């Protein structure tokens, strides 16, 4: 029965008893894009008990260059990623219970889903959702593994409640950045290297080999030939609102969340971000034009044509997504450009 896992059981730190543990575990994976495809496939091949996948997007042609679960047929059929992922993962390993959810991983949904979860894998594309995952992780004492990438640059960090600093200790607030896969591109090797770090840590957690956990923050750049491993023990902040002594889980509170609403009768969704930094419209404009976007602007706003949608971005980060009434689609479009 375990012939298919034999090479994994031969690996001493896993062994037959580790394999038994892996078989009983339930992993929640947020996102089924590039990181999600590869994380999901490795964990499924490894023989976990159950994998729950949440994703809000459809498979598009531009995904195929790096999202390993999907084929040209999935693009033609415009399948939701969660659905296409489930189909492929079942063909790979029918032992694993795959549960796919097409939707936006809001804090409410996360609280709902997290009940019998052993580990959360971060495969999302924005800090908003990551900070919510981070708060959920602390609130319910569930480990999660941060992973992110853009261009040839990637990073990962393992967060174990009560043992390691959390993402909010590190970042203090949601960083204003703006380098995303849709603005500066991404190559598939970067994705695989992030996932290699995430899934190695995942296996350690699933077999409960706590001594082996990587306590450093890893970042690397495959094109620029850089690799860095930063010790994080000093990062733990007792005043942190997510994991400190007087915690409030700020990213689960409604008033701190990104707000989105359909504008009545206008086929438009308005998005107001939670972060309070100002957006540099000039920089963003230079960035987006020259790429495949048509951009117009003035000192107060930028208008970007994106296929059948048009996004108008204001200096304070507010945006109007024209051409849709679908909030989850609008949030996806927003976060692809603004992170």
């Amino acid at each position: 029965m375990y012939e298919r896992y034999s090479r994994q059981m031969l690996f001493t730190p896993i062994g037959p008893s580790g394999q038994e543990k892996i078989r009983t575990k339930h992993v929640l994976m947020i996102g089924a894009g590039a990181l999600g495809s590869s994380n999901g496939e490795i964990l499924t091949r490894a023989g976990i008990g159950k994998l729950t996948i949440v994703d809000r997007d459809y498979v598009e042609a531009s995904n195929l260059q790096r999202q390993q679960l999907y084929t040209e047929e999935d693009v033609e059929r415009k399948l939701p990623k969660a659905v296409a992922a489930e189909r492929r993962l079942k063909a790979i390993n029918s032992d694993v219970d795959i549960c796919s959810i097409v939707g936006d991983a809001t804090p409410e949904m996360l609280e709902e889903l997290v009940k019998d979860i052993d580990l959360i894998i971060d495969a999302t594309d924005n800090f908003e959702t990551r900070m919510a995952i981070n708060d959920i992780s602390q609130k319910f004492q569930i480990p999660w593994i941060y992973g992110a990438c853009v261009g040839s640059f990637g990073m990962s960090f393992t967060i174990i409640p009560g043992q390691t600093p959390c993402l909010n200790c590190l970042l203090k607030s949601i960083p204003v950045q703006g380098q995303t896969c849709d603005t500066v591109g991404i190559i598939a090797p970067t994705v695989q290297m992030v996932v290699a770090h995430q899934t190695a840590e995942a296996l350690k957690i699933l077999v409960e080999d706590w001594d082996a956990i990587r306590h450093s923050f890893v970042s690397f750049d495959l094109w620029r030939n850089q690799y860095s491993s930063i010790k994080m023990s000093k990062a733990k902040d007792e005043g942190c609102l997510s994991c400190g002594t007087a915690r409030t889980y700020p990213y689960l509170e409604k008033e701190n969340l990104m707000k989105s609403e359909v504008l009545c009768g206008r086929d438009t969704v308005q998005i107001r971000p939670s972060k309070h930094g100002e957006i540099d419209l000039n920089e963003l404009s230079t960035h987006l034009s020259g790429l495949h976007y048509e951009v117009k602007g003035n000192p107060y706003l930028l208008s970007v044509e994106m296929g059948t949608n048009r996004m108008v971005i204001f200096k304070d980060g507010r945006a109007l997504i024209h051409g849709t009434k679908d909030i989850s689609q609008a949030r996806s479009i927003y976060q692809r450009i603004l992170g």
Partner: protein
Amino acid sequence: MNKILFFAHLKDAVGEEFIQMDVSGKKVSEVKELIAKEYQLGKLESAMAAINEEFSSDDDLIQSGDEIAFIPPVSGG
């Protein structure tokens, strides 16, 4: 003297993988400001900083010989 290392797109913006500069006695936040101005780096303030391969916060003081690294967090996935 201090060695200051830049990762990913910060490396390109600065034009070098590292620079040598005496910033001993300064806080990490002051170094960020200094470098952001010198190299016109918009978003250095949200970069993570490390001193001698150990996480550091904005208020940490730099000592002579310390190696500082700046790593910009990213959100893609």
